[in-house]
């Protein structure tokens, strides 16, 4: 058993090195006191981080990203909650088609979605800006939010809802007193992940923003200039730390309280 496990362990380590090391270069060089990225490092500086405080365009882009992210995640999670409940709980006509419809943005290349929204938006005579970006992000986030919520709701023991009805609560009372509190970790996880997806999203924003840049758009603009690279590195490092934190939080929430429910299911089986 052990000799084989060692080869697998080495493989696993190499896999993680391949996954993580390239990304680690961002924070490493963001503290490097040089415009060129090469080893050995030139010297330690926090100058690139301090620089961020003074960039007005960066602040504007950050604010735009937050606005889009909050609105898109709230709307997509709301849609996803109702959809997930329907798919996890009921069998109905047109189930497959509506599921496919919601999952569509997840199943086609993003650029197609971007181009489609662009054409519709322009032909409707509207101006490009953060509104179409938000719509695009909502469409794009909904499948993710729905998958998280379906997983949560499917692990949920429906006899709890029946018990509530049996104990004299009506449908709304059951939703607020039983279902919602038990779905809550899943809902928060879906909100957080939708926000992060929107916050990171580039293609839709690239096609639809017009003049209001989101944060990834801002970075894209800066990436072209060699002298701006350390600045992008520092910004990237901050974003990676921030998004990783949010994702960790979301995953932790996704599992919170699931243990109890699982035990109940285990009992049932």
């Amino acid at each position, binding site marked *: 058993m052990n000799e084989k496990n060692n080869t697998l362990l080495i493989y696993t380590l190499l896999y993680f090195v391949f996954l993580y090391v390239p990304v680690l270069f961002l924070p490493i060089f963001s503290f490097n006191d040089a415009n060129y990225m090469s080893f050995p490092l030139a010297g330690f500086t926090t100058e690139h981080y301090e620089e961020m405080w003074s960039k007005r365009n960066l602040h504007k882009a950050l604010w735009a990203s937050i606005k889009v992210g909050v609105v898109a995640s709230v709307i997509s999670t709301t849609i996803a909650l109702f959809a997930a409940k329907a798919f996890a709980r009921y069998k109905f006509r047109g189930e497959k088609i509506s599921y496919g419809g919601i999952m569509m943005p997840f199943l086609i290349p993003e650029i197609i979605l971007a181009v489609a929204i662009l054409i519709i938006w322009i032909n409707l005579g509207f101006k490009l800006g953060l509104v179409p970006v938000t719509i695009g992000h909502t469409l794009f986030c909904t499948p993710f939010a729905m998958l998280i919520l379906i997983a949560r709701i499917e692990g949920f*023991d429906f*006899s*709890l809802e*029946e*018990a*509530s*009805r*049996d*104990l*004299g*609560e*009506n449908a709304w*009372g059951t939703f607020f*007193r*039983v279902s919602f*509190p*038990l779905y809550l970790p899943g809902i928060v996880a879906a909100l957080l992940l939708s926000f992060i997806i929107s916050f990171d999203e580039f293609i839709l924003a690239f096609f639809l923003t017009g003049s209001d840049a989101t944060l990834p758009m801002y970075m894209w603009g800066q990436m072209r200039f060699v002298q701006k690279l350390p600045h992008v590195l520092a910004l990237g490092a901050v974003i990676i730390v921030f998004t990783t934190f949010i994702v960790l939080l979301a995953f932790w929430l996704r599992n919170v*309280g699931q*243990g*109890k*429910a699982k*035990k*109940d*299911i285990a*009992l*049932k089986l």
Partner: protein
Amino acid sequence: MSNSFIQINNISKHFKDVKAVDDVSFEIKEGEFFSLLGPSGCGKTTLLRLLAGFEYPTSGNLLIDGIDITALPPDKRPTNMVFQNYAIFPHLNVEKNIKFGLRKLGLSHDEIGNRVKDVLKLVKLEGYEERFSNQLSGGQRQRVALARALVRQPKVLLLDEPLGALDKKLRDEMQLELRTLQKNIGITFVFVTHDQQEAISMSDRVAVMNDGKIQQLSAPNELYKNPKNIFVSDFIGETNFLKAETKSSDGGFINVLIEELGEFKIKNNLNIAANSSDVVCSVRPESMMISNVKSDWDICLDAKIRQTSYLGEMTRFYVEVKGIDKTITVSSQHFDNQSFENNDCFISISLEDISLLNKK
């Protein structure tokens, strides 16, 4: 005391093409411990869920205490349920679980407190108020589920295989306890189970179900002694079936030709037609006698012991009787030597222990 506290009138429930419950009618008396017994998929749980209001019947109607509840949602019915997996709300502690159903009853604060206290005492869970579902054992959860339902003082308590998840010893204890509890509080219990021993030992009356229909509804001892058909006879306890043919009928008796054994005059409780080959005779293993010497019973057969299995309180013998191609099972409390395998022996049957059944 009304004789028909719960009335189930021509209830059918179809799921697409499957007739889960097929035109069932019967009545349950007030204060009765009533069991629905049957193999999985027989429709017993569907029937219970129809009573609770989680399913609505395709046709027929339901009355409880004279009120038609057929179309009422679960929260408007005078029933409460103990779920198979207990369905204890994982986000609420024991006390809040029990209080959950009291909010809509319009009780005063003191009354709520008293009811909760009383019911906790009843199910012996005092001191567990602050615990959560995952901090309770299976037996304790079952008590919480029971308390949560009883605290609303329902007219009928529905129990969906509540003992299924417990281990054997605890299950036996809970059977006794549930029975005592039901007698003390006097509420009508409708109990669903697939375990015949459980149903027989606890209930006042049992309805045996199969294929969405009631096969027999009677007191437990009747089920065992006088099964109405081959399904009930096979499902309740163990039995040996022997091929048979009826001949002429004679008052309450009928002449039956049992394969290889000869013709006998047997009680005809079920009014089985004469001159029919669509019948079968059933003999319980423990009603037969196995011995080394010939007996003077109505029937005494030469046999050979093929296999024995020692069960503690009794020994089961699998014997071969000349001319009968099936192995006959006989159990005995006295004849318990396992070294009898392949020995010759005698099997004795008394005519009154043979029941005659229609094949269908």
